[in-house]
């Protein structure tokens, strides 16, 4: 110690109770910041453009239904409701995780790089509230991306090919209203593994403090998982990979509903999301905010 001058003890000031802001308030401002950034609209733009490009391409080749490895591909011109199913089938493995990772990977790292993390952490909110709001923001953005894609695909599909009864993965036909309900349920269920992707993105964002690394890292992680089951001898890992859960929603479009993949996907997704969120929370709580 190196004090050259002894001073009387500081006056112990009274500490009046402060009305602390709620985590919801922090979330509201996180969403507001998100709305004000141009990059936010990049992911949503993908969600809008992808179905539109798909429908346009199919219209240009009308009369020649696309023959693919999914039953809906041959059904596309018979009901507009086949479009959101096909879009989900194709976008679930890459484009929707990409949209989710764009914000999840950026949500902490960007503030760290810009120095605004220290600005908000010297106010009246605890670190736990901040990270909770950021996780919620990342998941809500992923949800907005998926729902935008669903909405655009449904509207564009129905506008092109009508609101007709639609086939299920089992080959049975269901009425258009019921089909719409099942499609909504499928998208809603897909949000669970997508939330796990967002959680991993937030973890990498907290850990790396670098937006680009976190976004790319999240995508690389999911792509790596997709490759794992292609490795000879590791096929057995398939059911436990997050990427396998991307297709679990198909159980909802079977008649009768196939609950097995859905329930399996729930706990497997939780196995990825839970540790990622706990790690992100603990790292964020304990980290030194030395940048900016």
């Amino acid at each position: 110690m190196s004090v050259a001058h002894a001073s009387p003890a500081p006056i112990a000031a009274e500490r009046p109770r402060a009305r602390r802001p709620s985590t919801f308030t922090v979330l509201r401002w996180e969403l507001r910041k998100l709305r004000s950034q141009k990059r936010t609209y990049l992911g949503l733009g993908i969600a809008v453009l992808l179905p539109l490009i798909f429908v346009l391409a199919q219209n240009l080749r009308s009369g020649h239904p696309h023959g693919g490895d999914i039953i809906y591909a041959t059904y596309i011109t018979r009901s507009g409701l086949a479009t959101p199913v096909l879009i989900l089938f194709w976008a679930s493995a890459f484009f929707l995780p990409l949209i989710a990772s764009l914000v999840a990977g950026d949500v902490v790292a960007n503030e760290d790089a810009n120095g605004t993390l220290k600005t908000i952490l010297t106010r009246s909110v605890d670190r736990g509230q901040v990270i909770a709001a950021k996780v919620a923001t990342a998941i809500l953005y992923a949800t907005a991306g998926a729902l935008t894609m669903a909405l655009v695909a449904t509207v564009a599909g129905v506008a092109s090919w009508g609101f007709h009864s639609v086939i299920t993965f089992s080959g049975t036909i269901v009425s258009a209203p019921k089909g719409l309900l099942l499609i909504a349920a499928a998208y809603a269920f897909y949000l669970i593994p997508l939330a796990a992707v967002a959680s991993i993105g937030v973890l990498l964002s907290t850990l790396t403090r670098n937006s680009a690394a976190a976004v790319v890292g999240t995508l690389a992680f999911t792509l790596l998982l997709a490759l794992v089951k292609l490795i000879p001898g590791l096929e057995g890992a398939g059911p436990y990979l997050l990427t396998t859960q991307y297709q679990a929603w198909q159980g909802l479009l079977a008649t009768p509903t196939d609950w097995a993949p859905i329930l399996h996907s729930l706990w497997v997704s939780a196995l990825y999301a839970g540790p990622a969120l706990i790690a992100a929370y603990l790292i964020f709580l304990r980290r030194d905010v030395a940048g900016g």
Partner: protein
Amino acid sequence: MLARGLVKRYKEVLAVDHVDLEVRAGDVYGFLGPNGAGKTTTLRMALGLITPSEGTVELFGADPMRAGAAALHGVAGFVEAPRFYPYLSGRKNLELLAALDGDDARDRIDEVLDTVELAPRAKHRVGGYSHGMRQRLGIAAALLRRPRLLILDEPATGLDPAGMRDMRLLIRRLAQDGITVLLSSHQLPEVQELCDRVAIVNRGRIVYEGGLSDLRAQAGRGYGLRTDDDTRARQIASGLSDLEVGVDPHGALRVHGPEAAIGRLSVALGQAGVAILSLTPELATLEDLFFRLTEESA
């Protein structure tokens, strides 16, 4: 604010080495040191942004590492440059921070914008603000919290002379309003003008803490002496005890000693018929003291 035995190590680097600080209510406290001395790291620990390797900090009796945001009640400020969201306007940034402050912070936005004279530019995006405007917005953001302790890290850095003057006036006004100010700076005139107590830190260690006037008194006083017969005056001064006499590079006499000895000298000169044209106390400047202390400790 009370810091005791604060240490921060980064692997092999000892950034802060057992720092003790005591900022009392009403102080305008200068925290001085060269770049890299450990000032900002100490302030970050004080605000709970980084965890001390050893030691404790208390803000109004609460430890920010244990109590979290609750310890920051009544405390505001910024470390290094204040940072804001460039894509939001100044007002929106303040609205955001007011929301994170709770209480009635939002009701004070207009008032603090007026205080820092940013009201006319409040609707403009912060991305287009000058450095000085961002510094002032940083003060405004701090004032939203109605602080009793304001921690400012190099608030005048990067400002032009007029901006520096305005910043000093603002800090003085806030201090007059009863806000305790902890001002980290390496701008010695700023500290000399504003602060009543200082800590000087070098290489992570406090080399002085206490009143600025005490520091200058400790440095010993010298007097410049002009007479109508400097040769005779020097002979007389040399004959008196407790006095050291010398000649500065310009040929003028300088005497060092306690006030009593200086008094005896003036009487002796008068009795010898040597007229004193001027006898001027020369206090060591803060700059002299700062370099003396930091170079001694290096």
